[in-house]
């Protein structure tokens, strides 16, 4: 680990000013990804500003039924929150599908959004990676790319975003609240993470020094019947090959409302807009679930080792919608 200065933030504005003023400064949350990257040499900050003791640890109701989740709320506390469990079960389930009990006790809401890809080439400083070292090349493109993207990738980067929580937030139309030097801004979570394009080094639209202070969930009745399903190599404590977050409201055999997002398929949580459009107002049938999945996956471009993700994503979505419609979840 390269040497760095450590400061504990006492208020958000000073923390933003401090990090904004120094190009090689970072915020520290739970540290479960950043400290690992510092040890691996993937991150080499000169200044670490610890924001874990800022007053961002509450889960609060807002007027109109929305919920405000503080940036510092630990993943375990968010998953266990009674309101989240009853009104947004997909979010609790996604959180509980990620990492381990010990890590969820450390990891924060903001840090979960900002965690970086687990692409093995990104985490290995001895090989080329455009995300870690722009212009050096992508080792995954013709390497072991079983875990990589099938949607929205570029020749520069085929990494996938690792978060489960963010997939649920994408399905729920959450909003990320950010504090910068010039004040606060609100970013829909579906616009928060980027596709790699020609700048895979940027995972998100955040500017240097901007600090996430909260995430807001809209009042969303359809979310009461929602669930998260994760397919992985072992039953627990593994990243997703494919995951699906979905909420479904069926009335008189027709889809009244539906929200779908995929994980494990792209550089960002993949909100399945086409699948939703296919389903909305349509009969809630197995055939339509399959058509919806196919509509979303029509642009999938598999790499050498990950073509299995296309049928896996289709089957997982079909199964989850079937279970939600039957009230089995």
């Amino acid at each position: 680990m390269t040497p760095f200065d450590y400061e504990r933030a006492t208020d958000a504005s000073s923390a933003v000013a401090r990090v904004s003023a120094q190009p090689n400064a970072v915020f520290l949350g739970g540290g479960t990804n950043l400290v690992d990257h510092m040890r691996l040499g993937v991150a080499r900050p000169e200044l670490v500003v610890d924001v874990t003791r800022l007053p961002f640890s509450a889960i609060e109701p807002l007027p109109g039924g929305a919920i405000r989740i503080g940036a510092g709320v630990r993943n375990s506390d968010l998953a266990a929150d009674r309101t989240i469990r009853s009104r947004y079960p997909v979010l609790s389930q996604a959180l509980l599908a990620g990492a381990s009990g010990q890590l969820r006790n450390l990891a924060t809401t903001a840090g979960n959004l900002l965690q970086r890809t687990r692409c093995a080439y990104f985490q290995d400083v001895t090989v080329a990676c455009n995300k870690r070292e722009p212009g050096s090349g992508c080792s995954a493109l013709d390497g072991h790319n079983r875990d990589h993207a099938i949607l929205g990738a570029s020749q520069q980067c085929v990494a996938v975003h690792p978060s489960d929580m963010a997939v649920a937030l994408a399905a729920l139309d959450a909003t990320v609240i950010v504090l910068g030097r010039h004040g606060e801004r609100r970013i829909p979570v579906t616009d928060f993470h980027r596709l790699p394009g020609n700048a895979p080094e940027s995972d998100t639209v955040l500017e240097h020094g901007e600090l996430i202070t909260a995430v807001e969930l809209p009042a969303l009745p359809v979310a009461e019947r929602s669930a998260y399903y994760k397919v992985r190599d072992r039953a627990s404590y593994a990243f997703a090959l494919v995951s699906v977050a979905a909420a479904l409201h069926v009335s008189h055999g027709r889809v009244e409302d539906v929200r779908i997002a995929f994980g494990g398929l792209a550089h960002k949580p993949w909100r399945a807009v086409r699948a939703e459009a296919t389903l909305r107002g349509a009969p809630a049938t197995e055939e339509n679930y399959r058509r919806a999945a196919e509509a979303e996956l029509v642009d999938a471009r598999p790499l050498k080792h990950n073509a299995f993700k296309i049928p896996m994503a289709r089957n997982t979505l079909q199964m989850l919608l079937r279970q939600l419609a039957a009230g089995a979840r």
Partner: protein
Amino acid sequence: MKTSITLRVDGEQRSLQLDTRTTLLDALREHLGVTAAKKGCDHGQCGACTVLMDGRRVTTCLSLAVACDGATIITAEGLARDGTLHPVQQAFLDHDALQCGYCTPGQICSAVGMLEEARAGHPSFVTKGLALAAGLSDEEIRERMSGNLCRCGAYVNIVAAVRDAMGKTGFPS
């Protein structure tokens, strides 16, 4: 950069000076000589370094010690009371829940923290309807303990030990 922090470790107040790069795990082992927390992978993937920090189970290899200033740490060495092993420790002995023993202090701290979480009603990924019924099934124990790897493969007896400890520590089963 050097910095000063204090930690309460297994009931003792400890002050130490360390480099900001020091992880909590290295502070415990190398600076304070508390070796109950084991270094396995050093990447948060194995759980051998698990302790209870301010009452919650955490890995210590991914926390900077300086960020933990003022924390109360209980390692597996600090769980016994007046010469009597903690019920989870005793259950690990009774059920032969180890082979080489390297992962055991982390397993035990994780189990103690996990049972507290379950008592507070926290669901897991396998909890039906996110509503925890009384007691934990073996499936629940496995899921909740999945952050602790055992290369010897003593999992069957670890699950039995945790099940036994759950009964003896007042969890309605």
